[in-house]
């Protein structure tokens, strides 16, 4: 699979991603720093103290010098600067640590979304125009119409409140208790994050499967005497995945976006929670840092999707 052409393509894409990330980072940096009012103002510091702080963060320098220093920091050392609210906290290690937590939850959500979406989509397609199909297509509209925080609320009501009451607190989901990242803690937020997208994946898969099972090669597979499950999974689904793959880019973006809310609700100390918190705290430095991270993640995810195409569809070569 990894031909020379593909490797060259990957190289080019990585360079492109790096530039995009830098561009996004710069836009956010310049956009934010043009504005009056920042975290330092809000602390009601006065005179000398304030001057000292301004100086500490080089905020007393002209904007273009700040930008130059910021850019050199990012490019040469991967340094995203220092938190404005918590003096002395370096952003890069903070963001990287939080990234691992978010990535864990996100990966679960992604697997869950794709898995559930594919299964439901295939079932709806195979049972086309039966009640199973109607129920699934109708509930999928309901699924993607529910904001993730609503889903999270319902999950908490059931698993944290109702189940707790039912079992006298012996077994229930503890909201916001210390985050250990255990499976038991991950699957509720993952479900809330993924469910709306699972509906979309299911819809796409259904449409794509219906298209594929009319194809001649499915008839060929039947004529060979293959088992129906083999035909559906190996022959139909493989091909049906090709158009479904397109949704993966937006899906990753959706999960990143969703995590900003879901991590807050479930008390997950990840990137999303940091992002929302920093915005409320007006900690620009972290907002820029996290957003830069997000741009990089989206870039890498899109590259991953492109490579996935190569894996699924042998006709695609870069």
């Amino acid at each position, binding site marked *: 699979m990894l031909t020379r052409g593909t490797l060259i393509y990957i190289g080019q894409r990585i360079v492109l991603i790096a530039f995009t990330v830098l561009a996004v980072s710069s836009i956010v940096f310049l956009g934010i720093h043009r504005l009056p009012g920042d975290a330092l103002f809000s602390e009601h510091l006065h005179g000398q103290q304030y001057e000292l702080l301004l100086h500490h963060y080089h905020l007393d320098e002209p904007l273009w010098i700040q930008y130059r220093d910021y850019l050199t920091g990012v490019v040469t050392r991967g340094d995203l600067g220092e938190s404005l609210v918590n003096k002395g906290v370096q952003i890069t290690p903070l963001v990287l640590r939080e990234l691992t937590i978010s990535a864990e939850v996100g990966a679960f959500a992604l697997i869950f979304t794709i898995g559930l979406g594919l299964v439901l989509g295939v079932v709806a397609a195979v049972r086309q125009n039966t009640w199973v199909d109607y129920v699934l297509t109708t509930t999928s509209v309901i699924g993607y119409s529910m904001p993730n925080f609503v889903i999270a609320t319902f999950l908490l009501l059931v698993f944290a409140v109702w189940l707790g009451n039912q079992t006298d607190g012996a077994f229930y989901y503890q909201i916001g208790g210390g985050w250990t990242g255990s499976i038991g803690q991950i699957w509720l937020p993952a479900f809330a994050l993924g469910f709306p997208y699972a509906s979309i994946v299911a819809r796409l898969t259904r449409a794509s499967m219906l298209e594929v099972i009319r194809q001649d090669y499915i008839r060929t597979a039947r004529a060979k005497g293959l088992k129906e499950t083999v035909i559906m999974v190996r022959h139909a689904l493989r091909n049906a995945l090709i158009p479904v793959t397109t949704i993966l880019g937006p899906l990753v973006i959706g999960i990143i976006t969703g995590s900003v809310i879901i991590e807050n609700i479930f008390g997950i100390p990840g990137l999303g929670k940091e992002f929302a918190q920093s915005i409320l705290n007006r900690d620009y430095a972290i907002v820029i840092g996290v957003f830069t991270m997000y741009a990089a993640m989206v870039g890498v995810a899109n590259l991953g999707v492109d490579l996935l195409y190569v894996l699924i569809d*042998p006709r695609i070569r870069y």
Partner: protein
Amino acid sequence: MPAPILQVRDLRTQFLTDGGVVTAVDGVSFDLFPGESLGIVGESGSGKSVTALSLLRLVPDPGRVVGGKVLFRNQDLLQLSDDEIRQIRGRDIAMIFQDPQSSLNPVLTTGFQIAEAMQAHGKAKAEANARTVELLKRVRIPAAESRVKDFPHQLSGGMRQRAMIAMGLANAPSILIADEPTTALDVTVQAQILELLGDLNRELGAAIVMITHNMGVVAGLCSRVIVMYAGHIVEEGPVEEIFERPQHPYTWSLLRSIPRVDALRHERLRSIEGIAPDLLRPPSGCRFHPRCPFRIERCFTDEPTLEEVATNQRAACWVTMERARREMHADDLLDIRPGAGSGVHPGEQI
């Protein structure tokens, strides 16, 4: 004559369309003998493919086999369970299709798709892989060892159809159904594929059912031929007889429309006058009567059945039957049957 390997009796297949019920195959009966090569010809839409698909219960939705029997080794294929018919497909009766481009799965290697046909019927993976290379050699694909790893899009059209044939032969079936295997191919490649099928038929002893528009293909490959029109068999018999003495006016016009060798490549068939019948509202009586140059009154109202009109040759035509009846009474009457005598066209006689 040996016992037939496949007996089709009164096969009926319908499609429930928005416009109504289309009976695409309507009371088709025929025998297939071991090792023979049987042609099925007819215009587009006459029900050739649906007949073939019905034999293996592969008719796509909204189609359904609604009646008849398909007897193979003393069992009716139409009565088997899904799993039992699956065992027959590809192992005893294999099928190859018109367009090798769309009939091969684009995301799986050609070799895998051939080996898979054997593994589905119990062959071990290693053995199946080894035999795949042999099969590819057998259908004369050059550099077979490396070609097994190629995806369909990396092969030429002719090679793809060879691979399809290899897939069909994989389990050494006793019947190979080929549905217009050459239509999508270049003329030169067409000839090669037909030659290959002929050789395989002789060498392997598999019975071949060759579905085609093309009377030329039938002449080159088949020993017996079935002519279909609007879901019915209208004539059946040995190839030489049918070519020399077609008994049904439709067969006669099909023969007249064989393209000349120097004709344009894409001109598949010179079409027969008149339009193909609408199967939603089939014509009364003989379905061919609106287009028939010889029709008599009876053709408008009564449906003719397939009757023996010569040794081993059967036709469903009132004109032919009337003539045969009169012949019996007056052997010395002028012979006016279609295509009778060599080179005399019935059109000129009537």
